[in-house]
């Protein structure tokens, strides 16, 4: 390979990450410098005394939002992929029909309802949100992992066995890599829903980017609402563009 083609490829990789980077910088600078924009929000609510949400630092709210989503999503990926892999093994195959049906029926449950049901079961605070996000986030991941493993040509599986690969080698070298695009799409769906649902967590006592919105609705302060909404929107776009890039790789 010539050095110029290496450089071209490096530049291309850099350019691929440009969109996520721009969204991320926008997100961070807005979270850090919201108070600099007071004059702008003043136009929105000229009569109110306070137009910048002060009950929590925006960066801290953002951090907590990301943390909750990250914990829930990480657990959902581990459990979801694990469950789907387990029920496609010889030993767990009995559970496959039930798990597949549960994953598809579960997705008809609206996420708000799941969040609402988590509160009577677990109380207020961050824990019920993480559990609700985890439970709901599992479904698309399980479903997509099953679809991904199911989409593998049976002859490829047969050849892998015939060549003398152990079940573990088949899983790690053949099944998971071939199912990866499906799994990634499932994780994307899951994380997108989780970011949105976590924002609703502000109504059950979690403090995150949903807070300014809820507080703005309660106090009739449009400026608060717009601040929260902008940050959540930017957060979603950042995360979504990262997945977009990841999925585009061969």
């Amino acid at each position: 390979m010539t050095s110029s083609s290496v450089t071209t490829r490096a530049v291309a990789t850099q350019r691929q990450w440009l969109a996520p980077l721009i969204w991320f910088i926008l997100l961070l600078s807005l979270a850090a410098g919201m108070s600099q924009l007071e004059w702008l929000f003043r136009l929105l609510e000229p009569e109110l005394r306070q137009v910048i949400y002060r009950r929590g630092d925006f960066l801290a709210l953002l951090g907590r939002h990301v943390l909750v989503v990250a914990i829930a999503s990480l657990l959902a990926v581990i459990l979801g992929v694990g469950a789907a892999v387990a029920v496609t093994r010889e030993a767990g195959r009995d559970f496959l029909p039930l798990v597949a049906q549960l994953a598809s029926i579960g997705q008809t449950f609206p996420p708000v309802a799941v969040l609402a049901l988590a509160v009577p079961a677990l109380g207020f605070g961050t824990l019920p949100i993480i559990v609700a996000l985890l439970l709901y986030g599992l479904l698309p991941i399980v479903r997509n992992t099953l679809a991904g493993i199911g989409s593998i040509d049976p002859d490829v599986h047969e050849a892998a066995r015939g060549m003398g690969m152990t079940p573990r080698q088949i899983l790690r070298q053949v099944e998971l890599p071939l199912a990866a695009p499906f799994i990634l799409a499932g994780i994307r769906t899951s994380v997108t829903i989780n970011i949105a649902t976590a924002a609703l967590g502000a109504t059950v006592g979690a403090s995150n980017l949903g807070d300014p919105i809820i507080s703005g609705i309660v106090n009739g302060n449009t400026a608060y609402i717009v601040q929260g909404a902008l940050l959540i929107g930017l957060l979603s776009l950042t995360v979504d563009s990262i997945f977009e890039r990841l999925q585009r790789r061969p």
Partner: protein
Amino acid sequence: MGVNRQSPNWVLLSLMLVSVVAWLFLDALNVAPNRIVPGTPYTSLEVMGGWPALLLGLPLLGVAVLAWQPSRKGLQCSLAVVVAVLMLLPLWLAAATVGFVDADAPQARVGIGSALWLLLFLLLLAVIELRTRLGVSRAKGWLLFMPMLASWWLALTLWLEPLALVREYRVRSDQFASAVYTHLMLVGAAVGVSLLLAAVLVLVMRRQPAVRRIGFAALNFLQTIPSLALFGLLLAPLAWLGSRIDWLGNMGVSGIGWAPAFLALLGYSLLPMVRNIFVALEEVDAGVIESARGMGMSRRQVFVQVRLPLALPVVLEGVRITTIQAIGLTAVAALIGAGGLGTFIFQGLGQAAMDMVLLGALPIIALALVADALIGALSERLRLGGAQ
């Protein structure tokens, strides 16, 4: 080698064992003298001397035994037992409630505990599992839930007055009816309008590749924005429009209420609708279209008589996804004053009144499931008649 010796059905076996343990040892009921005081929990064995609870639990152990050596007869038997237990459960609850709450304690309320919820959930899973194993058709599968629903309805209307959920409902039955109505109207309007808009959009997209690219990019972008944020972002401009333009204001357009809710719902509904209609029309078997042309059908005839009927099941799938999504999003819209069942959820959360939260959340889930089943059945019918 044994003759037809079956390996155990581990799914059913584990479901039954967990059910029985949960049912007998977790809290089944929660009795409180009024709405404010936290109640006292009871396990099912502490209710009515315990024997009715055992009577419900023992047949489940029988199912577990049958699952050890499953045969078709055994599975049918198991299904009958599970459906019967599901049917008897509300009656048990009714009997327990009557026993616990005196007629002269109009404030007393009975809450449903984790044991009961869990049992309900696990038994429903068992029904699904048995339905799959026995290859029961979709329509007959729904009939299986009928006895259970009938007995719940009976119990709820006749004996379950002290149930917290029922008490909560009685206080605001008018509000409940109007919330359901608003919810359905918003969902119906969003789905209906988005179907029409999407159809028009797709017809343009099929002609103009540029519109197709931009359209999908824009809709994808919109779908990424979380609902709460989109409702919030629509609030400011609509409030401004409502206050500046009189006729819009008179129509009820403002930052709060149905207008931002409807617009946001419409935006979210467009993507799945457009995507499915587009894919449906694109993916009709090229050979079929080719042969229709070859037979001398005009472009219009091909579209109306071949492409459209073949595409319909996929379009309906889009309607199904959109409807379910809209039912959930409308719940969120309650936050910006759009009404609907979400109102109970958020009011309940605000007042820490969990039964009120349930009063909102359970019907929303029920609506989503019913919509899913109805549209699913419809599309299956069309598929049978129309295409594979």
